[in-house]
């Protein structure tokens, strides 16, 4: 049986390495690298834990991206921009205005 832990960010796929055990939470077959934290890296990332390994960091990063831009299950949900993103934008920048039609004040620091 091969490891079923997720790999990749854009192209989400199975790891594919030979499995040596299973995740106690979700039951996925896992290889040695993905078994390092005791459970699969996706479950660890979902529970807010942090596994200081390459696979753990990748899972945490993926979780972070998907929660910002929407994962496969959240396709179409419009929660991609934080209030901070929106606040940083002035109304003058609408529609990517060309350089000389904006609110640029040369002495505004």
């Amino acid at each position, binding site marked *: 049986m091969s490891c079923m832990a997720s790999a990749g960010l854009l*192209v989400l796929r199975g790891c594919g390495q030979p499995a040596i055990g299973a995740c106690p939470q979700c039951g996925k077959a896992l290889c040695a690298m993905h078994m390092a934290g005791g459970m699969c890296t996706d479950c660890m990332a979902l529970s807010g834990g942090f596994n200081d390994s390459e696979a753990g960091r*990748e899972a945490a990063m993926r979780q972070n*991206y998907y929660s910002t*831009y*929407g994962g*496969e299950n959240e396709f179409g949900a419009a929660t991609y921009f934080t209030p901070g993103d929106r606040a940083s934008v002035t109304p003058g920048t609408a529609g990517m205005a060309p350089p000389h039609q904006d609110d640029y004040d040369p*002495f505004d*620091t």
Partner: protein
Amino acid sequence: MSEAGQTVARKSFSGQFSPEAQEAIRTRALSGNWEVRRLMKVLGELAHFDEVNEKKTRRTMVWMIVLYVLSFLGIFAAAISGEFLGTNLVWLLPPAMLVLAIWQTVLYRKLKKQDLINDFRTCLRPVLRDLANDLDPEQKLRVQMDLSGPVDRKKTNERPAPPGNYVKGKEHTFKDPWCEVRLPLVDGATAVLQFDTTWIRLNVTKRNRRGKTKFKTKWRKECVARATLMPPEAVRWDEASLQARMDPRLEKVKLVEKDGVMCARMERFWRFKGSGDAPGDAPPGREVVGLLLRLHGAMMPSTEVGS
């Protein structure tokens, strides 16, 4: 350390790097076909060089200012101490300080000429790191990067500054399409990232309330990151979801045809300001990956076409 010593130190510092990185430092450009690991290593070396170079530039600037001030104050110090000590040798101090200050100025200018734009280390490198597991290890990345920033050869426009509270002013525009990188993905698709920067420099002469004339330089940096996703074969694009997922104030999305295959392109706009030196801020790598993530999420199998 003498100037010769400094040159040796600089050579030995850049000598620590791989030949590719040394070539990139010399030409301030990087291009060709690269394996992802090799490219990441060279970008890491360039990032280290740029960080150390920036620190050295700052330190040299501080010494330059201190030495100019000391050479001026040295005239008074020499006059006073010469009276007490009864020797004219103290008068050698101010010119010596001035020579050192000029030497630091020359060094400062040399270091500034070696400076690389920060965007490759604060934007492109994190993007490649986050996408590393999505890249096809069998294929090479095609890269074309110009790391020199706003230099004279990129100047496209020079005109009087827009009306404002100053005596005279001039605005210079530099067009800098500094990076294009082609990323083959494991699913056969190809992602192309293009970064275009427009630098606008405003040099103005102002007069303050006391009648003193002041010179000021202001910078504006406008960045556009353009992500194009080229599928290996005909696919259907979920345009509605792309439209729903973009921020219309900062982003644009459109479908483009390349070699008979419909591709999707998304671009995002950022603007930074600075005074004195050109702004070192760059688009966050995370937001650039976000463009590709949304494009990839909108790609649907061609079997669903017309269903």
